[in-house]
């Protein structure tokens, strides 16, 4: 806690360093890292900490990358290390299954976040219902929300709310939203839903903190960050920067700003020192509207097939691929290689 006589917090912060941050480290988190991050965030007063493979429970795979340490082992450590923080998981129907959720619930998680592409909310019905039955708090997570307008997004959010979600998130998976994009989507959900509304921002356009603050102005109840921004694409909304910026704006966060800055500097920064740089490829994700977690896979495929990572990302944007279609990175890279070989043969 900040220890000052701040007004009561208007929103709740979830730190996803140990879930979305998993993408940035190719899912290589260790038990020791998980324990250190949770202990430090918990002490700083972060109310919710998410722990899972980057692609959610069951995400360890060829397509998304195999986990160094099974996510249930990381969850077990996180639950053991926390004192007041609630522990959340993410799962994507189609990748994870209800049994994964049951196993996580047995370990003692508090929050289940169920994610679908923004137009496919109805595949979450069984999973949201099961999480509610298990007594968990449930968040519906509408990924790639930049791809549809506010009215369409509300229609999908209403489905998740009707299945029992306690909160529905506008998720900017591609870091493609402008401030106005974020504001209008959060406002539409706030106006049309009885449950809570959240925003999950990425920083590919360097707007994650600004979008999160705009979301709060529209009444958002929950926000996400990752410490140092560790996460998919150019990174997430950096938790410590969001907390500092909000406190400077007179918005109580419930998190100790200096403590969370220390978490960032001493616990998370050493895991990936150069996190926070928005290089061309990270920026391209936001510009082309491509799912953030494709970035590392695209870089690897570009190297393997001798093609340009920018060409891969732009083609993925043209094809309107959605989260989960990492296999299309290979598809595009192989095609680009073939096109280049054909062009060379013709000259």
């Amino acid at each position: 806690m900040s220890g000052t006589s701040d007004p009561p917090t208007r929103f709740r912060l979830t730190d996803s360093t140990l879930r979305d941050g998993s993408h940035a480290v190719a899912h290589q988190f260790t038990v020791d890292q998980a324990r250190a991050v949770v202990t430090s965030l918990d002490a700083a007063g972060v109310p919710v900490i998410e722990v899972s493979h980057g692609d959610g429970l069951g995400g360890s795979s060829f397509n998304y990358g195999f986990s160094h340490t099974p996510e249930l082992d990381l969850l077990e450590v996180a639950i053991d290390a926390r004192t007041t923080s609630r522990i959340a998981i993410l799962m994507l129907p189609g990748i994870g299954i209800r049994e994964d959720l049951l196993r996580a619930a047995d370990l003692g998680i508090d929050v289940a976040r169920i994610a679908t592409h923004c137009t496919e909310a109805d595949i979450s019905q069984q999973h949201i219902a099961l999480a509610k039955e298990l007594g968990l708090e449930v968040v519906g997570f509408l990924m790639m929300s930049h791809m549809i307008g506010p009215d369409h997004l509300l229609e999908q959010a209403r489905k998740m709310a009707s299945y029992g979600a306690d909160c529905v998130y506008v998720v900017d998976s591609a870091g493609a939203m402008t401030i106005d994009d974020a504001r209008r989507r959060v406002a539409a959900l706030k106006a049309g839903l009885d449950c809570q509304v959240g925003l999950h921002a990425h920083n590919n356009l360097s707007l994650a903190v600004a979008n999160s603050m705009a979301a709060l102005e529209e009444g958002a109840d929950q926000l996400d960050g990752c410490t140092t921004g560790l996460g998919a694409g150019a990174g997430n909304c950096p938790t410590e920067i969001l907390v500092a910026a909000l406190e400077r704006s007179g918005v109580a966060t419930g998190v100790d700003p200096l403590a969370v800055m220390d978490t960032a500097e001493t616990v998370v920064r050493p895991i990936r020192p150069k996190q926070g740089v928005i290089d061309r490829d990270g920026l391209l994700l936001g510009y082309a509207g491509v799912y953030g977690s494709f970035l590392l896979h695209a870089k690897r495929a570009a190297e393997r097939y001798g093609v340009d990572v920018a060409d891969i990302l732009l083609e993925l944007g043209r094809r309107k691929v959605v989260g989960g279609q990492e296999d299309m990175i290979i598809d595009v890279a192989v095609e680009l290689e073939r096109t280049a070989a054909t062009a060379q043969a013709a000259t």
Partner: protein
Amino acid sequence: MTVRCAIVGSGNIGTDLLHKLARSATLEPVLMVGIDPDSEGLARGRAMGVTAIHDGVDRLLDHAVDVDLVYEATSAWVHRDNAPRYADAGLPVIDLTPAKLGPLVVPTVNLDEHIAAPNVNLITCGGQATVPIVHAVAQVCDVPYAEIVSTVASVSAGPGTRQNIDEFTKTTSAALVEVGGARHGKAIMVLNPAEPPILMRNTVFCALPDGYDAAAVRDAIVEMVDEMAQYVPGYRLKSAPVIETEVYGTPGGVVPARVVALLEVEGAGDWLPPYAGNLDIMTASAVRVGEAMAPRPTGSAGPGSAEVSA
């Protein structure tokens, strides 16, 4: 003599199947069962001269004497309710839901093994598209782990598929092992809402053990794709199979490489447009299995014969 078939379920799968059965020389659609009187599928059935009823399987069982073979095209949990009733009535079933009550069948892998089974399961559309590739690789080397990603256009996935998404992944994963021959399996399903709708895409990853023969692996996949295209004309490789060398710590152990087969299935456009290759491969397999189960012209045992206890 034709085999008289009932289609239970008047959604996308059932209606696509109706069109394919109508073209079969040995199978004849005679009854279509739905639950929604206004269903487009039932209307299509009536227009094609098929008895179409909307009050569920009770009346199908009344009609049992007129039907030789049931195609279940509802959902996994509906089939779990219906299956014992078909069994009591002595009706053989080809199950197109992921209920996985009977043996799993893929025509290019094990068509003949389960012809006499009273209930055969066709896994899932993704399973029909990917299990043959795993099987082909497993013929030339050990497959410690196989994984598939099946992506279909959102508009081609009806409510049954959407509410069955866990059953899809679980049944398909099991089939990669039980029918494909991998030691471990994982299936992933993705829905893509892009407009115009995308063709069904399937990507198969097989872990390759030390000492694998790259040429043999590639050739086995290409041959299987040709075989599949015999009854699913739109089934094809998007690119030649690629072998990626890297140390992978799979659930089946650490391997030095994987083969990636990038597949596309264009449908025949019988009911939904050609993007819905997921419907096409399922119903094409269903017809293929039904034809294999049909009695030989000489009157040997088959569906509807006295061999099936009533």
